[in-house]
């Protein structure tokens, strides 16, 4: 597929933002319908699971992370599936990897070394993740330092208080500066949807972030009590479609937190295909922020190959 034309951002257009309407019940109804409307079986299911796998941002964001822990994760990202399974599926030549590895700033330098030359992107959470309440200039500086340390993607957190205040101008200004600090690194904006209280807030914040130059919009830090859900994904993805229809720029989407089963991952892919189309089924425009999802996908792939239900200890842990 062709390389995505990068979103340059645009001046804040408050008319677009204020005009956004979201009907919660209707959104929930539509989100519930994907599992009934689309079903992916057999060969197709295996292929779709491989695709899901390639869109994973394999993540570790814990206080007890160490270099060795990150090394194990990076190696898993490079070789996410057992060789014999890939051979049985006939895709060993694809050299499948996860989309990225996602870590805290302190782990970047080491991770960058482990991932060199693999094609696996390196993402860093930033701007005072997960609360985003450190001094603003330090947040911007954190981005610069992470980029310098080898991050090709920066996952920032937005200031939730600006959403509650409906201070779209300020939110726009902040994100715009983050984008500038990113340089060539891609900017993923985490909305912390579980804290934004309403779908309307989520939709408006999504639009403001895209206007400010986000390359991806992302649901959650994984630290909120409610993380990615299908309904909130639908709300955000519809804004991506709106932005694309109005500007011609394709923005990526990253649901994060709480997606742990292969079955769920298919539902998210279906949502992307139905709402946005084929282009959004590639890691350039779609990522899962997940850690345990990979294990379940591996088990399902082995089941597809052998016809026997698998066990987690048969697959390398990440």
């Amino acid at each position, binding site marked *: 597929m062709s390389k995505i034309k990068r979103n340059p951002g645009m001046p804040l257009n408050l008319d677009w933002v204020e005009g956004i*309407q*979201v*009907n*919660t*019940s*209707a*959104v*929930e*109804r*539509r989100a519930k319908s994907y599992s*009934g*409307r*689309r*079903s*992916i*079986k*057999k*060969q*197709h299911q*295996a*292929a*779709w699971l*491989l*695709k899901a796998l390639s869109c994973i941002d394999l993540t570790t964001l814990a206080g007890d992370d160490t270099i060795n822990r990150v090394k194990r994760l990076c190696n898993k990202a490079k070789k996410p599936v057992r060789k014999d399974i890939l051979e049985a*599926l*006939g*895709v060993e030549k*694809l050299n499948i990897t996860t989309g990225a590895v996602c870590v805290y700033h302190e782990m970047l330098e080491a991770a960058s070394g482990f991932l060199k030359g693999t094609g696996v992107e390196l993402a860093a959470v930033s701007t005072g993740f997960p609360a985003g309440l450190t001094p603003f200039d330090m947040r911007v500086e954190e981005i610069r330092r992470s980029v310098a340390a080898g991050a090709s993607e920066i996952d920032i957190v937005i200031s939730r208080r600006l959403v509650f205040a409906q201070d779209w101008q300020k939110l726009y200004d902040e994100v715009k500066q983050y984008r500038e600090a990113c340089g060539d690194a891609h900017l993923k904006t985490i909305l912390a949807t579980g804290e934004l209280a*309403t*779908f*309307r807030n989520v939709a408006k914040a999504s639009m403001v972030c895209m206007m400010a130059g986000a390359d991806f919009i992302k649901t959650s830090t994984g630290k909120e009590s409610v993380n990615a859900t299908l309904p909130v994904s639908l709300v955000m993805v*519809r804004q991506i*479609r709106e932005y694309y*229809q109005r500007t011609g720029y394709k923005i990526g989407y990253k649901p994060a937190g709480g997606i742990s089963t292969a079955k769920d991952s298919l539902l998210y892919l279906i949502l992307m*295909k*139905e709402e946005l189309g*084929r282009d959004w*089924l590639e890691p350039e425009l779609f990522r899962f922020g997940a850690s345990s999802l990979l294990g379940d996908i591996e088990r399902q792939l082995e089941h597809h190959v052998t016809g026997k239900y698998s066990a987690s200890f048969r697959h390398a842990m990440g």
Partner: protein
Amino acid sequence: MNIMKILETMDYGVAPENTDNAINWIKEHNKKFGLFIDGEFEQSKKAKYFYTFNPATGEKLAQITQANKTDVDKAVKAANKAQMSWAKLTGFHRAKYLYAIARLIQKHARLFAVLESLDNGKPIRESRDVDIPLVIRHFYHHAGWAQLMEEKLDDYQAIGVAGQIIPWNFPLLMMAWKIAPALAAGNTVVLKPAEYTSLTALLFAEICQQAGLPKGVVNIITGDGKTGAEIVNHPDVDKIAFTGSTDVGRLIRQQTAGTGKKLTLELGGKSAFIVFDDADVDSAIEGIIDAIWFNQGQVCCAGSRLLVQESIADRFHQKLKERMSKLRVGDPLDKSIDIGAIIDPSQHKRIEQLVKQGVEEGAELYQPDITLPECGCFYPPTLLTEVDTAHYVAQEEIFGPVLVSMTFRTPAEAVALANNTRYGLACSVWSENINLALDIAPKVIAGVVWINCTNQFDAAAGFGGKKESGFGREGGIEGMYAYLKPKVDATLKPSMPQKVFELKSKNSKAIVDRTPKFYIGGKQARPDGGYSQAVVSSKGELIAHIGQGNRKDVRNAVEAARKATAWTNTTAHNRAQVLYFIAENLSLRSAEFAKNIQSITGVTAKQAQQEVDASIERLFYYAAIADKFDGQVHTVPVRGVVLAMPEANGIMGIVCPDENPLLGFVSLMAATIAMGNRIVMIPSQNYGLTALEFYQILETSDVPAGVVNIITGDKNELARTLADHYEVESVWYFGDAEGSTMVEKASAANLKRTWVNYGKARDWFDNKQAQGKEFLNQATDIKNIWTPYGE
């Protein structure tokens, strides 16, 4: 296809539902089905058969019996025999059977779903996720009604044998909607599924056997329209419930006229889907998908007329077109299919023709570039824009996956367009402004309104139409009434002919001539025809002349009633005030009215005074209840409320009984205007004078012009004009048997609701038969407004 290739295309592939169990079930029956009568399957050697097809492939599935008159007779006999003991069971006992049926369907849910999709062509997703769960829910819910009958519906009883004729679009669901309430109420049934789709009803018959349902309680008769006609015309059937086309519904109304059969009709529609500029547009578009591309658009309440606000129309259409391109049409048994097969090639042809006609009339056609299966009966999702009200496709039900779109400028124009149709089944309203949405809902003439949702159904909420979409409700307590009759009806005696006194002297005793006129639009009006008839006292004296009304007087009165919409929209409190005031003013002139009654009827002074007193009390009764006949909030399984609002029928024609010139008149007037109707009253033929004198009371009681209109004259002739009138929404007729028949027959013109007495008299002094719930139910229609909420 190998995985490398799939990773490039990211296609869905196919996900076929396994049909082995359903095919085996058909084979177990040797692909040939008999009739289910008196608890057994019967296959006569002389029976004639027809084929049922899989519309997706055209392949023959099985042979179905074409039931004849003898078969229907046998089934009705069995139902009749079973009915008394079925009704006599305790509610709990009947509940156990209905519960067992619900459970058994649940256990065989997938078999039912697959069989339904095979026979009907609807996507397995819909039969599996919509139809069958709703069927199960319907039986559970009505198991509850069986149990609660004695407590909640104590004044009502079963009607008897219900003949039920259902359509092919939701075979099992429509069957459940018919059978569950009928059985809960204590009726037995003879049900005929549509000839295209009999299989799931036959599988249901087996469920009845497994549930140990007493023989004869459910009888399933298969066949075409001829079989249906046998059921409709069978003398021992007490109730007909029909869901299907308006044309056939009209025919059934005519055929059952005067038979005393209770009738409910759920007919066609051209329901509006209104999108305001403050709607969640993306959600509204998904709503349209569920509205018109659900069940291939073969849905009576399909949101087939899109009304979109001008300011957002272009963008809306653009987004809709993009969304349409994602719809997948094909094998109904593929789990990733949105739109399945059209029921029959004849229907396909009709859709094609209507679309062609639409385009010829100037509509712009859009069909997305998606692949259709090469064989089988498929039609692509279709949008017709640039459609105007005058276009045929804007008026006629297409009954296929075809949406027509029009624009509006203001909320008022949206309502006007929504109501600019002969139908009145459903409406969707999309707006994020609660004030706007809740303002529009009551203004749209439809039985069901969905706010920010569409095609929502539940056993606890009534479903049914107004205008030419039929009458009666299915679901909720309002649906139970369709299978019940007031216990008091059984005690009514035939109406005795009214005493007509002979004129003994041509000389009037009155010193000043009395010229009571008609009362139309709040004004006294002379009869259009210029003829009058004498009013003779019981002593044979000439008291006065009253006008002989004709068609034009009725026309004028209906015209006046049409303009008096403020009465329907005013508060119940205001209506109560007016009724109290009428009572007060009648009380002031009580002696005069008593004297008048005595003079024209020949009753004693005491009896006459009693009639006046009872009339005053009745006015008080309806004043009292005007603001207490509350609607309900139905408990449905969504986050939100379903408001079941009793609404006035609108313009009603009221033909008064021969008994009790004042009390009969007042009883009917008060009941109907208390609920907000505007009425045209035809007083009893020879007692018209009392009614005409009554307008002086109305004039002094703040009754707005046009709310009550009074015309005297030939009762049945005037009744016919009212029953024929396209703008009159309901007629009550209290007269003779012939008149009752005539009114029911003529009402077929616009399928207005009627309530006739079949020549039976009521004791208007007895509150049990002369006022109360049945009167209020007949004066109103329940509108169910679905209002999901949540932020």
